[in-house]
């Protein structure tokens, strides 16, 4: 039967930030969306792909298509995993027209979480409430790869009691970049400290991001250097009701 929405949960969320997945579940439930979690899902393969192992990435892509192909929509709380499936998978099969077609068919049906809410469901107000100033960091893959930048802002603005404030250089990379963060720690931490500075300068009470990688990077940086300054995933934010963050 093809009428269901499937959740694709990134490895980082599954292993390190499971509460983001739970927040996604709760928000979707609040909006009466029935979602399934296909049990056979593994990983999008971004890590090996970004290292340059294209052949190996093909196994990930093939498995992903096998697992998710039968769903109407696949929703993922990560811009980079979504972009991997949407934009990278088709390019992996330049020599295999049949697989390429399968990848292209999938590409039109995979959505990042906020994109799914706004563009597919037509939701703007999720019923979230958070009193305070919120700044939004445009993660690279969300904003430039998927063109998703208005959607999360729309959702944040609609939250009760929330004022969305400007984050200077908001679309500049936070310096995570997967392996980059540990291969070039000096450059990476200089980048994340610039991001944290913009957050501090913005006067916001909370920073919201749509990418688990950015969340880990910015979050652990803030924890060490500016304890008390909070960063939440957009799903966690939308899960907030009356200022609680659902953790």
């Amino acid at each position: 039967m093809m009428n269901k929405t499937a959740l694709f949960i990134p490895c980082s969320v599954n292993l390190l930030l499971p509460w983001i997945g739970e927040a996604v579940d709760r928000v979707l439930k609040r909006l009466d969306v029935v979602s399934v979690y296909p049990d056979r899902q593994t990983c999008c393969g971004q890590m090996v792909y970004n290292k340059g192992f294209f052949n190996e990435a093909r196994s990930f892509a093939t498995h992903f298509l096998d697992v998710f192909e039968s769903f109407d929509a696949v929703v993922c709380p990560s811009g980079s995993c979504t972009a991997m499936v949407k934009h990278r998978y088709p390019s992996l099969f330049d020599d295999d027209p049949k697989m390429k077609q399968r990848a292209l068919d999938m590409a039109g049906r995979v959505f990042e979480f906020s994109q799914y809410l706004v563009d597919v469901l037509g939701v703007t107000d999720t019923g979230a409430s958070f009193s305070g100033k919120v700044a939004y960091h445009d993660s690279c893959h969300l904003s430039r790869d998927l063109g998703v930048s208005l959607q999360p802002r729309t959702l944040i603005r609609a939250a009760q009691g929330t004022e969305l404030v400007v984050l200077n250089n908001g679309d500049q990379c936070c310096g995570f970049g997967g392996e980059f963060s540990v291969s070039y720690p000096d450059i990476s931490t200089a980048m994340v400290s610039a991001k944290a500075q913009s957050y501090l300068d913005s006067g916001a009470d909370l920073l919201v991001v749509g990418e688990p990688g950015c969340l880990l990077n910015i979050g652990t940086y803030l924890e060490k250097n500016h304890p008390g300054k909070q960063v939440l995933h957009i799903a966690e934010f939308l899960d907030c009701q009356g200022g609680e963050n659902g953790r």
Partner: protein
Amino acid sequence: MDVKTQSYVTEAKKEMASPASRTFLDFFLPVLSAVREIGMTSFPDPAAAVERARAIRRSSVDRLGELLETFERNAVKAGARVFWAENAHEANIYIRDLVNRHRIPYVTKGKSMITEELGLNEVLKKNQTPVYETDLGEFIIQLLEKPPFHIIGPAINIPTDEISRVFMEKAGMDSASTDPVVLGQAARNFLRDKFRHMRLGITGVNMAVAETGSILNVENEGNIRFNKSAPGIQVSVMSLEKIVPNLDDALHMTRMLCRNGTGQKLTSYVTLDTGPRKQGEKDGPEELHIIILDNGRSRIYDDIKTREVLQCIRCGACINVCPVFRQIGGYPYGWAYTGPIGKLLNPLLLGLDRTRDLYGACTLCKACKTVCPAGIDHPSMILYLRNKNLAADPVLQGEGSTFAERLMSKTAAFAATRPRTWNTAARLGSFLASKLGPCHPLVSAWTLKRTFPSLPPKTYRDLRKHP
């Protein structure tokens, strides 16, 4: 010019710790990017203008061979001499022999990254021919013996007191000053004298117009115009991708180049010249030599995946927006080209084996691709270079993968299609990672300025299955 691409990490650390570089990088680069954006809005339809520019560059590169031949024919018809240089050595020898044949006492140069690529100054120096850089920025770094920091502003990061010091030491300035006007005047006094007696001037080329055989240069100082119009011999060096089909396209690309480079609609000087001085004309060189340089570009052209890099017009827009460049500046790139375009050109021209950090140190954020008026997809090409490096590509001089890398990727690919194995391995892997301890290099790299994330007791998968 020396290749220092291998000291990327140490140079980067040095630059990040340098207060002078920091001030410049933190304040000036965002301003340059903002000015560019404002400049672009002066097009009636900026998006269409970008699309047209990308189409022009794509078709120019697609038709490269044919256009270059047309250019040569028309340039020769107009009286220019065209020399095809297979590599840097051939180009340098051609210029050196020209200098020696005509007993040229010294040469002057307009700003050109291509002659940095050639290492021409070193060759002429060995020939005991003094070279005077006449672009203010190039002049400053020549005196300081520093590499270019940025393709558009080679000395843009040098503080004025350092310029004052080196001008007093080497350019005849009498008293110290940090006033830009005074410094400019000092450079002008020194260089005017060189122009007055110049016999051979060297320039780069921003665009070579096939239809007319003309060469076009943009600049803000007028020194290129001097080098192109003063009597004697003019040598203009172009890498072969500088070709555009016709004047119409050249003008559109000029509008694009200026806006993307400096935010100007047009630079203060734009020179478009066809052939040397003709009878009855007042200025222009007596002899015009155009060197068309390959230096590895045919090889780049032959691979359909790397060919796109030849679309670049060297506007510098990608450099100004690059978040890595904004931290480390231009020196770590270790060769003629810096920023995202340097991450592609340096490895492609020098080989993957000695430029690993260039295509390695990238978060694939796509800021470069988004602004590029020439339609280059830098991140995709960076991934391609990583792939070729792992595959030990003989043409691009890839290093190959390590045993550990192969093991990791093969194991991961094996497990990716077997959910049970995948989940067990992922849990085990993250558990082991959480026990690595603070001294493990991966942990210490992460915790340099961050805390180590703790491992939650249950995965999302477990929670979902057994809430």
